[in-house]
């Protein structure tokens, strides 16, 4: 049992030395990219080789394309290769493998996606993804371990191949081909008839996908319950993901007070909306399919209840392995901010900065210098007429109300106003900015453009 704690302690030691709010630049490329590319090609090619049966060539092509997409994503800075985060994930994996020696993890590799969305995925060939957003949504090692067990279960049950095979064989089934032939013979209403067929196929495919999710929950829980982690945390992990189903970014962002300065007060028209052509709360689509409203994942409530009944879980024991996770959350948050800024997702960067600052997860100096740097980027993007390339407009149908508010504000701001606001922000937080070279530099920048 003692051995089970070695990896987390090692992780903790490494982490304590390296952790501070002054994070290093995000590492979007691995130390040895060629070795990683070779590895990915190898596992992909091994995986593809064992695909046989009907439609094998089509299925192989899909997996081949997937591999190419992953390679492109690495070069597009979709992943980060951070030692601290990798050590943390390895420490959890080590506990899972130890408790489940039957898992052949020879080709397993976990990549860390910089997205703020709480998610994880299994590619089938040995590659897995853990999203940074998972660390800010979940709050204990136990919960992260359950999510990882769920993904490993997908791999053990060969779900990625199963899902793709199901899609290809459904689309290419005799029944579907017959329906397509009949539609082509129709003189009138071909498109509507074809849409109806697509809808039927989509519902079948989504039903199958839901089944595989429930299977992964079950096997994942079996794997998880053998580990040192608190098995009841499987339920809390799922319920935290449910909480974020509708709105991922739910912290109230008071734009009108954050950007209100004595030297440059907030102007109400920065939050003024334009008249919309329709007053509806939902998008109108008279060509929508029933399958459009179905979700890939079964409702989380249903999954929680299923787990409870299948495994007779009744306790809500709150103990667990939380220490490492607490430290990692801060690192993950800083990495998400850096990544958002690097990708020019400045709306998300503002949201994360404000949320973390209000919750006292980042210090005043880091907050003010980083926010000033975001304002400088907003100014430059506006000057070059490219803000709209990086920050989507407000959408009345989006559940992300807080993000919408920031987007409306950023798009309503004019270049001259951004310039003045940047200076007002720097003046109001002069002490924090002057404490660092880059803060001083940003202050100088806003002074110079306001002359």
């Amino acid at each position, binding site marked *: 049992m003692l051995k089970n704690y070695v990896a987390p302690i090692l992780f903790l030691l490494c982490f304590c030395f390296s952790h501070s709010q002054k994070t290093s630049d995000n590492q979007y490329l691995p130390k040895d990219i060629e070795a990683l590319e070779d590895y990915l090609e190898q596992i992909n090619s091994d995986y593809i080789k064992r695909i046989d049966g009907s439609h094998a060539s089509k299925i192989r092509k899909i997996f081949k394309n997937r591999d190419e997409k992953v390679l492109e994503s690495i070069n597009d800075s979709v992943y980060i290769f951070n030692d601290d985060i990798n050590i943390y994930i390895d420490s959890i994996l080590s506990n899972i493998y130890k408790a489940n020696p039957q898992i052949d993890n020879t080709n397993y590799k976990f990549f860390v996606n910089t997205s703020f969305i709480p998610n994880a995925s299994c590619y089938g060939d040995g590659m897995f993804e853990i999203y940074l957003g998972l660390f800010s949504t979940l709050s204990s090692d136990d919960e992260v371990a359950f999510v990882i067990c769920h993904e490993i279960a997908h791999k053990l049950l060969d779900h990625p191949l199963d899902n793709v095979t199901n*899609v290809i064989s459904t*689309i*290419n089934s005799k029944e*579907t081909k017959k329906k*397509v032939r009949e*539609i*082509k013979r129709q*003189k*009138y*209403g*071909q*498109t*509507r*008839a*074809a*849409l109806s*067929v*697509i*809808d039927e*196929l*989509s519902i079948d*495919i989504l039903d199958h996908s839901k089944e595989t999710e429930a299977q992964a929950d079950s096997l994942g829980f079996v794997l998880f319950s053998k580990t040192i982690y608190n098995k009841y945390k499987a339920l809390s992990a799922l319920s935290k993901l449910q909480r974020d189903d509708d709105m991922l970014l739910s912290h109230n962002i008071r734009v009108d007070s954050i950007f209100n300065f004595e030297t440059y007060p907030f102007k109400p028209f920065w939050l003024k909306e*334009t*008249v*919309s*052509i*329709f*007053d*509806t709360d939902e*998008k*109108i*689509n*008279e*060509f*929508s*399919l029933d*399958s*459009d409203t179905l979700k890939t994942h079964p409702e989380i409530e249903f999954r929680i209840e299923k787990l409870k009944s299948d495994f007779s879980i009744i306790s809500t024991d709150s103990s667990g392995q939380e220490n490492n996770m607490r430290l990692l959350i801060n690192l993950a948050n800083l990495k998400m901010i850096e990544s958002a800024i690097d990708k020019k997702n400045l709306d998300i960067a503002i949201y994360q900065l404000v949320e973390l600052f209000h919750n006292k997860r980042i210090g005043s100096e880091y907050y003010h210098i980083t926010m000033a740097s975001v304002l400088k980027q907003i100014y430059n993007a*506006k*000057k070059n*007429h*490219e*803000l*709209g*390339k*990086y920050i*989507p*407009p*407000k*959408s*009345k*149908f989006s559940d992300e109300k807080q993000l919408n508010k920031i987007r409306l504000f950023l*798009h309503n701001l*004019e*270049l*001259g106003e951004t310039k003045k606001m940047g200076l007002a922000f720097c003046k109001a937080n002069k002490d924090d900015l002057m404490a660092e070279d880059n803060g001083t530099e940003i202050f100088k920048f806003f002074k110079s453009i306001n002359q």
Partner: protein
Amino acid sequence: MKKLSVILLTTIFCLSAFAQQKSLDEITSFRIKNSGSFMDKNNDVDGYYFYYEVDKLKKGKREYAIKMLDNNLNDIATKSYIDDKNTILAQSKFNNQALMFAMINIKEKFYKLVTFDKSGNQGKDIKIDVSKKDVRWLSMMMKSGNFNLLFPVDDNGFLFNYTKNNKKMGYGLKYVSTNGGESWDYNSPEDANQLMFLNPIEANEKVVVAIESSKKSALSNTVNMKIVVLDINTGKKLFEKDYNRDDNPRLITNAFLTEEKNLVLLGEYFKKGKNIVKDKSEGLFAQVVDMSGNLISDVKADWENTINKLMPADSNGKKKKSTYVYFHDVIRTQNGSYYAIGEKYRKTVSLKGTLLTGRIGSGMTQLTITDAVFFEFDKSFNLKEIHKIEKGKSRAPNLADFGSPQLNAHALKTFGAFDYEYTQIDKDRDRFYAMFIDYERLKGEKNKLAFKAVMYNDGELSQDKIYLEQSKGRVSFRVLPAKLGHVMIVEYNKKEKTLDIHLEKLNI
């Protein structure tokens, strides 16, 4: 950012992630017929539409899809619409209460007005039977650029302006109320012995102001103008003011209704007997009339004594007598001052044309268009200043050598020869944005094509610029109208074959 593939934009929109199978995909491809924007009288864009043909139905019918985006480019609705196979969507407008689409069917000979309320429900269609000749004339009038087919009256209704074949070609103006008021028609006399056209240019909850133009035949260059003011609740004529060639020839560019309930008319005035299309004007005027048609004031700024004295020299430092100004718009700001927006032009010999034919005088002249000019007038229409906005020269071959420069300028305007694009007016913030295309000739650098916005804010004019090519031509840009103070940038990367569409605020 809206990242769309070229194929997506021009032919289909995605229906399902599983529509991978080619045959199913082919069947469900929506064929695009046309697209456009919902633009109001201030050139403010309320949204965008795409008109697709979806399905063939029985009895020559088709199912169409009208996809609508809001003014932030968010997909907001896709409505099904069933009509005849030859029905085309000509124009669409929004009046804060409803959307109206003007449909035209040449073969079946009808116009149709289709409305959707704010909940997206389709109202009762209005069908107007016409002749093929009417539709041909309508098409010609729309191409001329000075013709508002649909004119939204904010929070009240829509005006549908169309050609109507009487003894000679005439007009019909149909008002459709969207606030429960009366709908009406106002048509030209059926026995009129002149060609008559109407163009509504201003309307509010009380009146409609329209310019009625008339000429004896299609080839005649003598056009007489009249201002017609109608009661919006009844369609009854309140008064008209005649600006005919014999007594008081005027070319009216714009009209405004003031808070004092007066009508302000702006444009160019001419000597008695002069032709407003082909003669040089005497100057600019601002005329104020009350709602009974009584003249309150008529202030003029003439070329000789007023304008020429303030006219800045051309970019080469010279003032040429043969340089004229083509006025595109006259704007009235909220503080009562006026800005007349124009471009300088002159008739020159085309060296290229002369070399090609070896002689001068046979279609070998051109219009050389130079700087943009903004005439600033105070509340009393006293000319205060002429602001020159430097611009590269553009040249357009004249349509006829024998005509006056003015006649050629009017003709070339309809072919888009001038660099002026459009002006947006923001009444809430008392601003306007005048857009031009500029071919910058830079010393020591390759010439650059730029989209240039001249903006009025806080009593000052400033400029913003977007170059239309980057990375040695690998990335090209098109700049299109968008909501007030914004432009829609369509960015095409030739190498990566990607198309990015995004809205950007003009920089003030």
